[in-house]
């Protein structure tokens, strides 16, 4: 027997034998029973073997490299914990970004894990199946490394302790939750265009790169470690997203309009979730690497344009909401932070008005808009607060039926006018924040009529603890909602200036510098 013929299989050939050659077309069971979910979306796939594997990694290398990453990451986390690294961050305000991250983003990593397991089971093509399952495995990694990295913060600061409970209940967390629920409840092709492409490829750079770079800049080696380590898997995921979309488009010309509609939808859904990132970058980081606007220009405008130029050969156009998103870059973070300043009593993290120094930076980064539109309100809040009247909004906001963000977004060409869009479905009015969200609603009203809108749920009486009697005269609905959210009044919420977090951080830091 000639053993030598085997020796030099190339990477691609070897990988083929290790993955798609393992698969076969079932004959004892019908293909449509084994893979029942592949037809109903209308996507036509003629030859799954045409899929180009993005990174050709077999399980043994996967275990090897991922274990190495994990060892490094946990070594950093351990060292950071042992050295009280949390006291080395610029300022305790920074820690609020981590609360937002754990309550808002980490649960999505977990959803991605389950979602990719689902499509990794359902695609009839072996190539994408394997890539999706590897991604599923990576995503549980991200959820867990975040839970573990932030575990030590949870021991010392408030607002992390009820992340699971709050993600499924608190008003603004329905924004990221509904985003991912929307994707996973869609068909397997829409899911991968939504998450693998529109979110991972077009948008996650905006979430991870500036934010994590910002964590490093603010002295948080723990968050930097999990962030960059997660991001190293992300490049595999982004590539999978890009390869899948090219593959679908190459398979049949009828796929183009379906994919384009999904891109329009999911670019916008993802962009709306990034609202939280915009304000995190401009308002929540004590030291900032770059503004939201700059990050948008680098990662969305420059890189996105390159990407869509590349995809133009398939007939793909820049997503519908692109132009509006680019116009919003001067306004988004300022308007968003005002929402959280308004409702700072109902969120499990702290808010604050920017300091004079912060405003100088904002004014320099946003020369056309900050002083004109946004400085007055922050100065007003600061004055009110100095006089003992810190402004909290006590009435619940109207939410967009699709993105579920309070309806603060303004008209694309008039930053002073809040945008209202109305639809009617089965005799009931539905309201959206923008043309794009309305378009999404109008396309699939059966879906969005199901939305669990936090404000409506509160008014329906579904957000009080079980022991509450609303008929009692001393019933205080908002206090009871906070109890149901498991937000401890005065501890987890309200202005940073009066928070136990601030007091503790200062006291602990003082201990480090004197006896």
């Amino acid at each position: 027997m000639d053993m030598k013929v085997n020796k030099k299989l190339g990477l691609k050939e070897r990988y083929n034998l290790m993955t798609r050659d393992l698969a076969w077309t079932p004959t004892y069971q019908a293909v449509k029973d084994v893979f029942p979910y592949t037809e109903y979306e209308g996507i036509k796939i003629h030859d799954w073997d045409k899929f180009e594997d993005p990174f050709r990694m077999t399980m043994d290398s996967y275990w090897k490299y991922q274990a190495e990453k994990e060892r490094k990451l946990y070594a950093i986390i351990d060292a950071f914990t042992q050295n009280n690294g949390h006291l080395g961050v610029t300022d305790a305000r920074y820690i609020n970004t981590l609360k937002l991250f754990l309550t808002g983003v980490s649960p999505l990593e977990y959803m991605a894990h389950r979602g990719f397991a689902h499509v990794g089971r359902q695609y009839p093509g072996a190539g994408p199946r394997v890539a999706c399952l590897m991604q599923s495995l990576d995503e549980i990694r991200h959820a867990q490394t975040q839970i573990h990295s932030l575990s030590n913060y949870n021991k010392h600061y408030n607002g992390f302790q009820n992340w699971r409970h709050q993600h499924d209940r608190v008003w603004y967390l329905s924004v990221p939750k509904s985003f991912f629920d929307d994707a996973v409840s869609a068909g397997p092709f829409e899911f991968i265009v939504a998450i693998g492409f529109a979110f991972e490829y077009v948008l996650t750079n905006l979430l991870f790169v500036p934010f994590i770079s910002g964590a490093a800049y603010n002295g948080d080696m723990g968050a930097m470690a999990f962030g960059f380590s997660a991001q190293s898997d992300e490049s595999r995921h982004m590539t999978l997203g890009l390869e899948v979309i090219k593959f679908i488009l190459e398979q049949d010309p009828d796929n183009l309009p379906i994919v384009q509609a999904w891109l329009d939808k999911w670019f916008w859904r993802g962009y709306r979730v990034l609202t939280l990132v915009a304000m995190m970058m401009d308002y929540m980081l004590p030291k900032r690497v770059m503004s939201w606007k700059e990050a948008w220009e680098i990662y969305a405008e420059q890189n996105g344009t390159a990407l869509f130029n590349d995809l133009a050969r398939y007939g793909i156009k820049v997503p519908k909401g692109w132009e509006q998103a680019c116009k919003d870059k001067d306004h988004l973070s300022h308007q968003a932070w005002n929402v959280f300043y308004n409702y700072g009593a109902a969120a499990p993290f702290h808010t604050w008005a920017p300091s004079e120094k912060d405003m100088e930076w904002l004014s320099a980064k946003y020369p056309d808009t900050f002083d004109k539109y946004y400085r007055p309100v922050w100065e007003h809040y600061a004055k009110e607060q100095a006089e003992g009247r810190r402004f909290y909004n006590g009435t619940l906001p109207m939410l967009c039926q699709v993105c579920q963000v309070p309806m603060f977004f303004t008209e694309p060409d008039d930053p002073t006018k809040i945008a209202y869009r109305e639809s009617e479905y089965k005799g009931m009015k539905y309201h959206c924040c923008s043309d794009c969200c309305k378009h999404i609603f109008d396309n699939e009203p059966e879906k969005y009529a199901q939305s669990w809108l936090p404000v409506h749920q509160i008014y329906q009486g579904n957000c009080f603890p079980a022991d509450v009697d609303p008929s009692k005269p001393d019933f205080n609905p908002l206090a009871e909602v906070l109890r149901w959210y498991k937000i401890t009044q005065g501890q987890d919420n309200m202005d940073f200036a009066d928070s136990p977090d601030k007091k503790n951080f200062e006291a602990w830091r003082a201990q480090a510098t004197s006896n």
Partner: protein
Amino acid sequence: MAVKSIAPYEFEQKDTVDKFPAPLLYIGWEDHKMFCAPFCAPMPPTMKFGELVKGALPGMYGAHPDFARIDWAKAEWFMSGKPFTPDMDKTLAEHGIGHKSVIRFRTPGLTGLSGSCF
């Protein structure tokens, strides 16, 4: 277009009026984004428009320095974006305001903090 699904996909609408103590009303004050978004609150259909203005709005908007300066006689009202003239003695229902109606008001001359529309 409709949802593409593998089986019938019809569910009860989550927010039908019967589930609320009263129909929901959305209300926004133009040029005053200090209140970051329009409000949402259940309002009985039998409530007089005047009660809404005198009874409910101060609690919602009183924190803004412009609120005390409003000349209600000059206020401009919109329902689903279209102008209308409310009758303070008529009920919300009589104005055709129902579940999930959205009304807005503009207060000419008042454009927020330093004219910033906040």
